[in-house]
C-alpha cells in the first residue's frame, strides 16, 4: 500500500500507460539504490585503503593506530583460535548478557515508572526532584561503587547498564504519557474506558513512539555500562579484552574489540527497527513523490 515512487522531474508524453509509468518508477528506484550503494562502498574503500596505505608508508603511526589488515588478522585469529583469555565467544557472550539483562530490567522499570509518574500528577511532583538529583550524577562514577557492592561478576555490570538505560527510558515514557492527546483520552473515557483500560488503550500506544526512540539509543548505553564495568573490574568480557590490549600496547587488539562491539550494536539496532516497524503499521508511510 505504498505510493508509487515517481521522480518529480519526470514528465511523460501524453498517452503513457500506467504500466510504463510503473516500470519507469521501478527503474528509477533501482538506479537510486545502486548509486547509494556504490558511493557507500567507495567511501569505505577509500577510508580503509587510506588507513592501510598510510600505515604502511609510515604516515600513520602503526603503534597507536594499527592498520586494517592487522585488525582483520587479529579478528580472524580470535574467531579461529580464541583470545589469550579464552574463546572470543565467551567474552562476547558475557558482555552481551550483562548488557541485555541490564537493558531489559532498565527499560521495563523505566517504562513502568515513567507511565506511573506520568499518569499521577502528585507522585510526579513529589519524586521529580529526586529523579533530577540522581540523574545529575554521571553514571560511570557509579562503576567502582557497584563493583564494591556487587563484586566482579555479572551483577555489578547489570547494575551499571541498568542505571544507564533507566533514566533515558523513564524520561521518554514520562514525556510520552504527558503528550497523550487530551481529545483521545476524553473520547476513550466517554466510550467507556476506565482506569487500566484507558492506560492500555490510549496512554501506552501514544507513548510508544517516544519509548521506542529511547530504546534505540539506550541499548547502546547498556553496552557502554557493561564495558565500563568490565574496565573497572572483571574476569571476562570485551571490556576486559580492551583492558588487556591496553596493558600490552596492543593497538590491533583494541581496535578488533571495538569492531566486535560495533557489529553487535548494529545488529541490535537492526533488530529493534524490525520490531518497531512491525508494531507501527498504523503510522502513515512516508510519501515517495519527491524522488
Amino acid at each position, binding site marked *: 500500500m505504498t505510493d508509487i515512487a515517481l521522480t518529480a522531474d519526470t514528465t511523460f508524453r501524453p498517452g503513457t500507460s500506467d504500466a510504463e509509468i510503473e516500470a519507469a518508477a521501478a527503474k528509477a528506484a533501482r538506479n537510486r539504490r545502486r548509486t547509494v550503494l556504490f558511493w557507500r562502498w567507495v567511501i569505505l574503500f577509500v577510508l580503509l585503503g587510506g588507513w592501510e596505505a598510510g600505515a604502511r608508508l609510515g604516515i600513520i603511526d602503526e603503534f597507536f593506530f594499527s592498520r586494517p589488515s592487522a585488525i582483520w588478522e587479529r579478528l580472524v585469529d580470535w574467531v579461529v583460535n580464541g583470545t589469550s583469555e579464552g574463546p572470543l565467544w565467551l567474552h562476547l557472550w558475557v558482555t552481551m548478557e550483562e548488557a541485555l539483562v541490564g537493558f531489559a530490567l532498565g527499560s521495563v522499570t523505566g517504562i513502568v515508572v515513567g507511565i506511573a509518574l506520568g499518569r499521577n500528577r502528585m507522585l510526579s511532583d513529589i519524586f521529580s526532584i529526586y529523579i533530577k538529583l540522581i540523574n545529575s550524577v554521571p553514571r560511570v562514577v557509579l562503576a567502582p561503587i557497584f563493583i564494591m557492592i556487587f563484586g566482579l561478576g555479572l551483577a555489578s555490570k547489570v547494575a551499571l547498564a541498568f542505571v544507564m538505560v533507566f533514566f533515558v527510558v523513564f524520561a521518554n515514557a514520562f514525556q510520552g504519557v504527558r503528550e497523550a492527546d487530551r481529545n483521545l483520552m476524553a*473520547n476513550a*473515557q*466517554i466510550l467507556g474506558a*476506565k482506569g487500566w483500560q484507558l492506560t492500555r488503550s*490510549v496512554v501506552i500506544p*501514544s507513548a510508544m513512539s517516544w519509548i521506542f526512540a529511547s530504546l534505540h539509543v539506550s541499548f547502546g548505553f547498556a553496552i557502554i555500562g557493561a564495558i565500563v564495568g568490565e574496565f573497572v573490574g572483571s574476569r571476562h568480557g570485551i571490556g576486559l579484552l580492551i583492558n588487556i590490549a591496553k596493558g600490552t600496547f596492543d593497538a590491533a587488539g583494541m581496535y578488533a574489540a571495538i569492531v566486535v562491539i560495533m557489529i553487535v550494536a548494529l545488529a541490535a539496532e537492526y533488530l529493534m527497527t524490525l520490531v518497531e516497524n512491525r508494531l507501527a503499521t*498504523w503510522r*502513515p508511510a512516508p510519501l515517495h513523490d519527491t524522488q
Partner: protein
Amino acid sequence: MPAIEASASPAVELINVSRRFLTPDGKSMTAIRDFNMSVARGEFVAVVGPTGCGKSTTLNLVTGLARPSSGEVRLFGGPVDGIDPRIGFAFQTDALFPWRSVIDNVVAGPLFRGKPREEAYAKAREWLARVHLSGHESKYPHQLSGGMRKRVSLAQTFINEPQILLMDEPFSALDVQTRVIMHDVLLGLWSEAKASVIFVTHDLEEAIALADKVYVLTAGPATVKSVYPVALPRPRVVAEIRYQEDFIALSRTIWDDLRDEVERGAARDEAVAA
C-alpha cells in the same frame, strides 16, 4: 423521586449553571454564567454562538468530564455523577485512535463496556455497513479521507446507542459537499436512534437545517440569549432545505440576533490582544 416524574423529566437540563476557570496568573475567569437549557427526549437542539464564548465548556459539563462551579446539570432527572454511559460525544477534531484499524476503532466502546468480542465485532460490522464503510474494516484512519473518518467516528459513537448525543462542531473541518452528505447521514441515524442531541456549531444554516430548536448564546461569559423553534417539516433533505422561503426568513431573523454577539466577541478579543 416518583417514577412518573422521572420518566417525564427532560433528557438534559442545565439549571443556573456557571463555570469558572483559573487563569495561569491565578485569576478567576467566568466561561459560562447562569446558563439554563432543557432538552426534551428525542429532541434535536442546536447551539450557536461566537467562538470562545463557552460552547465546548457547556458540553463538557454534560459529559461529566468537568463539574459546574455552581448550578446543577441533570440527565433524565438525575444528577450527573462522573461520565455517564448514556452519553455519546462527537468531537470537532479527529478523535479516532490512529493505532487502531477502522473496525477496532468502532468496536472500542462495546469492548470497554465488557461486551463479548464476537458480539461486539458483529455489531461493529453492522454499523460500518450503515455508514457505508464495509470493505474498509482493516484500514487505518490515516488511509481514509476526512469524510470517511467522520463516518467512522459516527459509527464509533452510535454503536454505544447513546440516549444523549453531544456534538461539538463535528463537521466544521469538512468541505461543503461532504458536510451536506454528513448532515443527511446524521439525520438518518438520529431518526432511527431517537436520541436527544445537542449540536454545537458556528454555522447558523447547519443549525437550522438540522435542529428542532436553535439556542443563541451571548459572547462570553455564555448565557442563553434567545431560543428559536424550527418548524420545518421532517424528514428533511439538507441539500435542498436551505432554498426554502421559511428557512431563509428564519436564518435572517436569527442572524440579526447572533451578529451583535459575534461583533461583541470579536471586539472583546481585540481588547484582550491589545
